[in-house]
């Protein structure tokens, strides 16, 4: 089964977001096609993270709408987004520090839990079966991300690079159709970046997951993404495949020309 890039699955129309008086996003529109890797780039403070936060409902835009698989939302909320198959990772790793790797990933299975509190309290039939079945699923993710040796380690004790991987694992455990990655390679060394790139491509390739990705490392972005949106000071200044974006004068002056 090959995952050809398909129709538009997620469409943002004229999204504007402000905190108090500060405008974070101004009238941004772009779309994401099924199975593609879509990158959002831009200098610090360009509003990239805010963009992701709007998509999965952590922030509520003052204007604009989000069209997800043809359904219109004036604003998302995190629960609806999760239900709709959107999961994400965080720029500053947001793992559950008090739990180990398996449990962190098990939380990613939360939406698929059917048993109720009473059944769980008694470790009773359905609850027990579910726990074990989801554990098996989580183990597949652990295997996929090659983190077998730390499966029972409390996440707080892990080095940064591995925490990032677990963060990705938790998002993957949701079996998302759209995966939002907020600077997945920030602060990693070359080897870790290579691994992470490989995982991102593998996820896209094996599960056909649509990926929206924020990344600082231009080389990586241009390498792995199908299309790129460029933001600057909350405004969209470029959109297209990596070659087009590279060639756009506006982008060059705003971003690529400036050394970071």
């Amino acid at each position, binding site marked *: 089964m090959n995952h050809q890039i398909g129709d538009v699955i997620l469409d943002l129309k004229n999204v504007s977001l402000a905190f108090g008086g500060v405008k974070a996003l101004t009238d941004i529109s772009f779309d994401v096609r099924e199975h593609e890797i879509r990158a959002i780039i831009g200098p610090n403070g360009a509003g990239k993270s805010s963009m992701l936060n709007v998509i999965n409902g952590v922030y509520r835009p003052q204007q604009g709408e989000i069209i997800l698989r043809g359904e219109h939302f004036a604003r998302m909320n995190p629960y609806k987004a999760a239900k709709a198959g959107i999961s994400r990772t965080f720029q500053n790793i947001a793992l559950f520090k008090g739990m180990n790797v398996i449990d962190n990933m098990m939380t990613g299975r939360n939406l698929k839990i059917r048993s109720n509190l009473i059944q769980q*309290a008694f470790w009773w039939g359905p609850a027990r079966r579910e726990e074990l079945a989801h554990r098996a699923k989580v183990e597949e993710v652990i295997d996929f991300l090659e983190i077998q040796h730390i499966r029972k380690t409390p996440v707080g004790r892990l080095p940064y690079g591995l925490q990032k991987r677990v963060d990705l694992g938790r998002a993957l455990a949701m079996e998302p159709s759209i995966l939002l990655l907020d600077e997945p390679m920030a602060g990693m060394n070359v080897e870790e970046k290579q691994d992470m790139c490989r995982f991102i491509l593998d996820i896209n390739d094996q599960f056909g997951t649509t990926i929206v990705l924020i990344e600082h490392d231009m080389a990586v972005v241009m390498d792995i993404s199908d299309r790129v949106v460029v933001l600057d000071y909350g405004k969209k200044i470029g959109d297209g495949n990596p070659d087009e974006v590279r060639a756009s004068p506006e982008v060059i002056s705003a971003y690529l020309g400036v050394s970071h």
Partner: protein
Amino acid sequence: MLYRENGQFKTTYAADQQIFPIAQDRWTILGILLIAFIAIPLLVDEYLFRAILIPFLILSLAAIGVNILVGYCGQITLGAGAFMAVGAYAAYNFHIRIEGLPLLVSILLGGLTSALVGIVFGIPSLRVRGLYLAVATLAAQFFTDWVFLRIPWFTDNSSSGSVSVSNLQVMGWQIDNPVSKYLFCLIFLTIFALLAKNMTRCAIGRQWMAIRDMDVAAEVIGIRPLFAKLSAFAVSSFFVGTAGALWGFIHLASWEPAAFSVDRSFQLLFMVIIGGLGTIMGSLFGAAFIVVLPIVLNQFLPALGGVFGIKISTAGVSHAELIIFGGLIVFFLIKEPHGIARLWSTGKEKLRLWPFPH
């Protein structure tokens, strides 16, 4: 040192996810249960039952409840005493108003009522966090203090304001002497601890902990804070309320609202913090510590004074008790902020790695 884990490999997830995956732990727990159920009733005298064991069991139960809310879900509460009160008075009212209602049912209904009240008072947690919430829970405390003091219906119009129960029995088993009371509470604690452990290792427990550790991330992966927090309040209050009913019915037999004052709330919070936030075992340790310490000090201080030829007055003892108690709490928080349970697990880890240090 005593652990021999070679060969204890797991071939199924069920085996890997059991509560005590290590065989030695299972044997230890079994041993402790045997001692608790068989040896102690045969060996221990009445005073210990009344002064230590029964309060310990009931407060452990309450501490587990508080720990679910504070330790697992991260919602600080200073109103646990209120929910004990609700449990106790609700059970009392069910007991006296419904003819022939079995004792067990009354107690559990007390717990359930407390759970409902817990949900109501948990609603602010959806908006309010941290220390603000802690203070908000005091509202529950003072409100219930007032309700049970001022509204006569709840105390069956008792003129003295105190209520009492008598002639307790479960299916013909008279709960009238210390041993039977002890066993009754022990059964409760054993079952409830197991239920709590199950919940905390299941989806619901992970929801609580996710909310505690990083609520935004929890929401993003589809955990609803509303459900997670209110369920924690409900379950916690159920445990605390049940403990309250036992405290009233079994331990005190007759009581006034002061039995569940704000001091009780603080005491319960102490237990979970000293015992260890986020562990079931820690709740028991904490309860043991808080119950036993004053009694030990009471016995020990005059004796110590005697050694140095100082006669310590009763008032002096109670002052010294306060100082030592407070000092110990501070000492504990500084030396082991994760509580006795952490000491326990570190000790266990050391035993597993013995003779190596790491």
